């Protein structure tokens, strides 16, 4: 084996050398030193990982925390996480915006008594058996009352949007219930609640208007 041949195969060698390669290394000090140097570099490099002591600036966590709070991923666990208030008043509906986005975390606690046979591939229409909870219905009614008070002409449009998004949520909840381990079903549910959260936010976020 020549030095050129050895250098050509060197990138492919991982671990032990073949007999021919070993024989060449015994007889060639240049290639032997090259291999020793490259091994020394690889060994020292591995030690680099074990000696990691560089730290990022202290402000990095602050920035992360701010972003997480803005995105609603951090919530204060000292207050009871109620999802549906007993008798919400219109001005308190705004809390539903971040709460809606976090509802995915409680999918395992949602109790729906619907037969599995509803979810069959032959059914072309997504949802055939609308059964929203009383509390959710109450919140939606409150929202429609707020919308009617501000812009009566928009009520029908928001009512249709609520029906659409509630249908999305029901279908997604059913998917999760069918297979709680299905990550995609969980993502669907999160997406559905994001839609509802957006609907509430758009409905409640309006510029000043004199009465």
């Amino acid at each position, binding site marked *: 084996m020549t030095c050129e041949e050895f250098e050509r195969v060197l990138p492919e060698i991982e671990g032990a050398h073949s007999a021919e390669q070993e024989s060449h290394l015994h007889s060639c000090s*240049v290639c032997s030193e090259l291999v020793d140097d490259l091994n020394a*570099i690889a060994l020292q490099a591995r030690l680099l990982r074990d000696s990691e002591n560089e730290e990022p600036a202290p402000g990095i966590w602050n920035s992360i925390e701010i972003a997480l709070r803005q995105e609603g991923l951090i919530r204060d666990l000292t207050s009871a996480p109620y999802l549906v208030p007993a008798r919400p008043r219109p001005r308190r509906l705004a809390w539903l915006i971040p709460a809606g986005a976090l509802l995915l975390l409680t999918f395992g606690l949602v109790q729906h008594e619907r037969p599995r046979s509803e979810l069959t591939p032959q059914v072309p229409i997504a949802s055939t058996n609308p059964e929203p909870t009383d509390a959710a219905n109450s919140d939606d009614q409150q929202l429609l009352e707020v919308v009617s008070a501000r812009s009566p002409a928009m009520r029908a449009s928001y009512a249709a949007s609520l029906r659409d998004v509630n249908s999305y949520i029901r279908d997604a909840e059913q998917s999760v219930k069918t297979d709680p381990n299905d990550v995609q079903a969980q993502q669907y549910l999160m997406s559905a609640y994001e839609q509802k959260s957006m609907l509430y936010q758009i409905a409640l976020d309006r510029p000043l208007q004199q009465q």
Partner: protein
Amino acid sequence: MTDARKSQAKKLSESELIERAKQGDAEAFEALYHLHKRRVYSLCLRMTANTAAAEDLTQEAFLQLFRKIATFRGESAFSTWLHRMAVNVVLMQLRKKGLPVVPLEDTIDTEEEAPKKELGALDPSLAGSIDRLQLLRAVEDLPPGYRSIFVLHDVEGYEHNEIAEIVGCSVGNSKSQLHKARLKLRELLKTSRAEKARKP
């Protein structure tokens, strides 16, 4: 986070912290961050050789991790999952800047950059004489494409098939570029040692 809460968070296992973080617990997020920040930051620093960029990428990696923490199901170690995410964040940033993540075969090496295989018969061997700081400085001087592969394989321990999947190259390309990265480091280390020896 108050000291009392920090102490409490420390006593929890990592899996308990993960479950709490999934519920939105701020202290759990912070504890997970402090547990893994050095590893992630070191990786970002080595791959970018830039402190400011490394901090930005550390922040981005943790944000992506925390956004997706609800989907973590424990099939792999949390640190592995985080590490892979950090690598992806760095590589995306390198691509965004138009820097080569993996140099294409035989296209990038200029005469200046091409590592020399033979450095002279009188150069003593490096074995047993490389120290950490020297190697760190030499890694910083590597071209970005070589640096990525070297850090991923030799420092962080990724296999070539994993590197190929992460950066989008072939296994052969990964091996070839690693070899060139090591040759280049050898050259940088020997040059640096020779310069040091010449100084009075």
